């Protein structure tokens, strides 16, 4: 086969796959619009200071606790709280607000209840903490494994232990960081770009191959003089192009809306991008190499992408996982790619910091691709 014919075949295959994608509005929505909406939602949610709500259950003794001003809690509720009815959960609360300009305000809602209802409310996550006062001694009931409940306990117990219920956070000790790259959105955007590459490559390549095999399209294609490798290469190239467009649009959006800048080397970023694409394209070809059932394909793709989505530190740092697990997480291709994109975006990293990781990603992709091609079933 002459070179021109080979090139024409490849060009026609790329054109066909590209046109197919461009003509599918759902592909454009999930690939481009959805990640932008997600970054907008999460970015706004985590960059706007909102009142923190804490809900407490107060165990009643015989009468209403508010009527008994001889108790600490009763006395506090009478003096410091205002009564309000919440139509949403049809409950009357005693509310109390601690104002803090730097950390944001915290509102405490107290509800009189009995033990039976309190247990149900704790189970449903309605109450953070349940309080009970007996013989001038306040006890706090909560799950110590729940960080929200712990924080509520620390704040509210400090308050009840203070003289005349005065609780002051020493705000002069708090220094707001204004360094570039320390906001949550700075952490999130590079992670979203990495996750977008993984999702788009895994679904785009694996699902396309499996679906075409199941509909006997691959069988029809290899019954022609087409060079078999051109079919796989064309699917991969089109996916690279889509990934580039998706990532570039997400970055442009983040640049204008959240003022995010790439502090490190752009060529290094391109290298990580290409290496990440190779890694996931290889894995995608491998997992789609044999099956012709789309249901099995769904399962296989999910088995690969779900753990990485949850564990690779896309939305929140993976450093909160147990220490023994972190070195394992750091070996995942998505973790490697997200960490490298993040270090280029917010730490100013370049080739020196990312070259080894990019090589690892590339090798991963090549190994999986070779194994996939070896066991590839055309029909």
């Amino acid at each position: 086969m002459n070179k021109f014919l080979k090139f024409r075949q490849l060009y026609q295959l790329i054109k066909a796959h590209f046109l197919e994608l461009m003509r599918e509005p759902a592909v454009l929505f999930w690939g481009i619009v959805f990640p932008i909406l997600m970054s907008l939602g999460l970015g706004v949610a985590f960059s706007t200071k909102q009142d923190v709500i804490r809900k407490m259950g107060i165990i009643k003794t015989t009468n209403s606790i508010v009527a008994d001003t001889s108790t600490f809690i009763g006395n506090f509720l009478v003096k410091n709280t205002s009564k309000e009815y919440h139509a949403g959960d049809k409950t009357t609360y005693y509310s109390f607000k601690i104002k803090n300009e730097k950390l944001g305000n915290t509102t405490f809602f107290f509800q009189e209840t009995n033990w039976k209802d309190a247990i149900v409310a704790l189970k449903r996550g309605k109450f953070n903490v349940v309080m009970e006062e007996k013989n001038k001694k306040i006890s706090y009931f909560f799950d110590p494994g729940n960080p929200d409940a712990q924080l509520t306990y620390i704040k509210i117990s400090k308050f009840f232990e203070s003289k005349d219920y005065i609780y002051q956070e020493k705000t002069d000790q708090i220094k707001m960081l204004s360094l570039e790259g320390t906001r949550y959105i700075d952490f999130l955007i590079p992670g979203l770009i990495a996750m977008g590459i993984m999702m788009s490559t895994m679904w785009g390549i694996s699902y396309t191959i499996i679906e075409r095999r199941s509909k006997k399209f691959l069988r029809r294609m290899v019954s022609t003089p087409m060079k078999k490798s051109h079919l796989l290469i064309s699917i991969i190239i089109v996916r690279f192009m889509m990934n580039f467009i998706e990532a570039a649009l997400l970055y442009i959006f983040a640049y204008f809306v959240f003022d995010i800048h790439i502090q490190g080397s752009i060529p290094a970023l391109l290298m990580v991008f290409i290496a990440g694409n190779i890694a996931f394209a290889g894995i995608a070809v491998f997992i789609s190499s044999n099956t012709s059932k789309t249901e099995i394909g769904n399962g296989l793709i999910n088995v690969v992408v779900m753990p990485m989505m949850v564990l690779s530190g896309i939305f929140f740092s993976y450093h909160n996982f147990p220490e023994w697990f972190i070195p394992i997480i750091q070996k995942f291709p998505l973790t490697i790619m997200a960490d490298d994109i993040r270090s280029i975006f917010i730490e100013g990293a370049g080739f020196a910091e990312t070259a080894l990781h990019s090589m690892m990603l590339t090798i991963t992709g090549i190994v999986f691709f070779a194994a996939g091609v070896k066991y590839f079933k055309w029909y």
Partner: protein
Amino acid sequence: MIIEARDIYKSFKAVHAVNGISLSIAEGQFVALLGPNGAGKTTLVEMIEGIQQPDKGEILIAGKKWKGNEDALHHIIGLSLQETYFIDKLTVHETLCLFASFYDERKTRVAEVIDLIGLEEKKKSYVVNLSGGQRQRLTLGIALLNHPKVLILDEPTTGLDPNARREIWKILLELKKKSNTSLLLTTHYMEEAEQLCDYIIIMDKGSILKEGSVTQLLNKEKGSKTIEFELEGIYETIAPAETLPGIFWDNKTQKGSFQLFDMGKDMQAFLHILEENNLRIKNLECRRKSLDDLFTSLTGRHLHE
């Protein structure tokens, strides 16, 4: 011979799909493989197309085996599979251009093929928007792009309405007139085989039952006429008689038939069956024997079962 298959066997676990079949097709010859679903037609043509490997036997296309000659053979064969999916959101023209690039055929050939398959008005339509018949014509057009020496079509008209089916026949008859292309066609429509092909191979359960030209097949045996009848009332079965062993009753269509070998003797036997079983004739027709009748007389089943 452009296609030669010798003593071909193919099994899938315990099922013997093809059981020692041999066939040969000359240049320019149109051959039909006729048989019901599950007869082994598709397995046989997929082995000839190089998609499946026979367990035993030899297949030669233009004197070449598949092994080591894939590229050369793909260039001279045009085919359509039983079910073919193309990319939904590509137009007819784009789909043909894609396949043309595999054969190094130019846009002028694409235009010729669009004209040949009568899809000029639909050339800018997406594949997903084509009707069943139009999609089948596109499938045929793709098979014809490379001026094939051998055209292999696996049930090209199954599921199409009579008009759409005739459109496909028209294209194939035109091809027969103007080119030296050989055709191997699988079908379970006897009319299709009769209309298009010079030579017919009747298959069932992986074996060849009979083969020859339409005239040869229908004249090989006596009984070139068939009596078809309907009865008053509904019957599951009718009792066979020794004097008329070939009588056949289809309880789905509520129609019966038998071959007429000896007008006087056979009709006498038929009337005797009616009288014995107290049956009353609603309708009776005498017609020329068809391939379907031949298949029924060979297997006791209809072709389209």
